[in-house]
């Protein structure tokens, strides 16, 4: 599904990713861990197509298509979803309007008919129940006045509506208490399927207790330096990243 080869990327003169390789198959969950400044969020942003990051070398194939040929919104419609580390507040635009605009824009791109408002309402009502979120969040402006936990849950809720093929979760666990973490993890687990893959960027092993990964990668200085199974996360919890300097 996703094949990243020799990816080099940075912001301005600062090179952040320095030859990153990663392959993700449908149905797999890959956890990306690593010290601060290693390039984890940059990887998520490159996949989503954020324009402030310059890709200087390498290739990203997504379902046999060169992802670099696509604009941000086209990548979303192709099936890439980035759950933001810091979800953005959009005053004056309610969640329902925003989500329907997003869903229908993606459907239009794919040549599918637009979803009418009554079908959309049914869809969001069923999904919001699954996410254990309050109905009134739908009528509120996007992320405005949401607590940190609500914002992260809203990201997963959006993901459940848009049903991407590849979901990149950028530190979705940061700032969450245990209960919120479980809710978010439940939401992700409900979306796990044989044709959907996840890249879970996290600092902490505890998220991986709830979203069990197939692979754990250590990203350091812009490259993946070690790959293992979920036991690697437990090991990192004990040893930290000091071994990288050895």
């Amino acid at each position, binding site marked *: 599904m996703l094949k990243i080869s020799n990816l080099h990327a940075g912001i301005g003169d600062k090179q952040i990713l320095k030859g990153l390789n990663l392959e993700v198959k449908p149905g797999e969950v890959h956890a990306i861990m690593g010290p601060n400044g290693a390039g984890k969020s940059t990887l998520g942003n490159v996949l*989503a*197509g*954020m*324009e*402030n990051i310059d890709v200087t070398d390498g290739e990203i194939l997504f379902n046999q298509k060169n992802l670099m040929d696509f*604009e*941000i*919104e086209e*990548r*979303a*419609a192709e099936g890439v*979803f*980035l759950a*933001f580390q810091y*979800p*953005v507040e*959009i*005053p*004056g*635009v309610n969640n329902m309007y*925003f*989500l329907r*605009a*997003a*869903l229908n*824009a*993606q459907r239009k*791109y794919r040549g599918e008919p637009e979803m009418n408002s009554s079908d959309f309402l049914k869809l969001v009502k069923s999904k919001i129940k699954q996410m254990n979120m309050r109905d009134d969040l739908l009528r509120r*402006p996007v992320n405005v006045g949401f607590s940190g936990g609500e914002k992260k849950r809203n990201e997963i809720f*959006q993901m459940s509506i*848009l049903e991407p093929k590849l979901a990149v979760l950028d530190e979705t666990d940061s700032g969450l208490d245990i209960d919120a973490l479980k809710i978010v993890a439940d939401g992700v687990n409900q979306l796990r399927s044989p044709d959907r893959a996840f890249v879970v960027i996290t600092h902490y092993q505890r998220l991986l207790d709830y979203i069990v990964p197939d692979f754990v990668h250590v990203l350091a200085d812009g490259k993946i330096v070690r790959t293992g199974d979920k036991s690697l996360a437990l090991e990192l919890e004990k040893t930290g990243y000091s071994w990288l300097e050895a």
Partner: protein
Amino acid sequence: MLLNLIDTAFQKLTKSLSESDWLQEKRQKAFENFQKTGLPNRKSELWKYTNVRKLEQLPELQTQFHSNFYEITCESEIEVYNLKDLNSKHWQEIQSDTNRVFAEINTAMLNDGFHIVIPANTKVKLKIDYHQTSKNWQNIRSQIVVEENASLELQENYATNCLMNHVAVLHVGINATVNINSKKHLAENSALLHYSVINCQENAEVKQSYVNHNGGLSHFIQDVNFNGEYGRFYSASANMTSDSCEINENLLVNHLVGNSKSEIIKRSIASDKSQVSVNAKAIVAKGADGSEISQSLKNILLSDTANIYSRPELEINTDDVIAAHGSTVGQLNEVSLNYLRSRGIPKIEAQKILIKSFLQEANIFEAEDFLDGIEL
């Protein structure tokens, strides 16, 4: 050149009119004041950013008195007088200086106008449409008196092609409330010079919502005077310009007595080669303790060639005041834009959503005309 034009038009108008002596005297006095003061220029504070050269390009002035420049719709029974038939005691005096000299021209060259009284303890809904019925520059004066405990809901619309010098005076009586919704969707060949004065008595409340969209030259001056305690003034406005259009909006709130409150929200967007200048000033007089002032001016530039000048200003001459003011000028937030796009919304649609969201901060929900007329 404009001075000569006004002079010639004034002579022509006064010869042709048959009206009451007091109004003729008003005209003559106003014309003399104008001659003394002269036209505003770049050194005049409220015209600093206005392309005053555009004034030279204004068409000839209307030199006859007409009664078809406005249309008033009201379901209730109210008193509406044409200014021609008015008694001198109803004439509402207004301040004049270099910045407000077009008010003098308005009086001198008055082509039409009305005086409305909203009786005490009544609730009235009023709609006023201002028409452009000739190719000439029209001078119109409107006076509305809202008596004690009365409530007025006012909807104003201006002709898109208006060439108008409008003076509006609103008197809001004790415990009276006024809600104004004013729409100015103007064409590039229009010119609207607008001076309004609002006088608030004790415990009066005025809420206004203005949409100012385009116009070759739109220049607004508004003076709000709190003459009685516990007055409240809320103003939310949106300025939207494209092409070579120009909007200049100047608001002065005079907290002359204590415990009055003014809350100003202005949102402006300029694209192409257009220009917006926004100035919100509050003066708190000595002893006007307990005054509350809030000014929020936010502006977005959609092109490198557009200009926005934004200035919130406080002049406080007493101790016990709560005041906050702020002004920002920037572009559409890139992070927000990317967030919307990352969900599949195309860039142009995402920009439109953010523009609407920006205007909604001022409770303005009418961005479609503006969005249809710009290239993102």
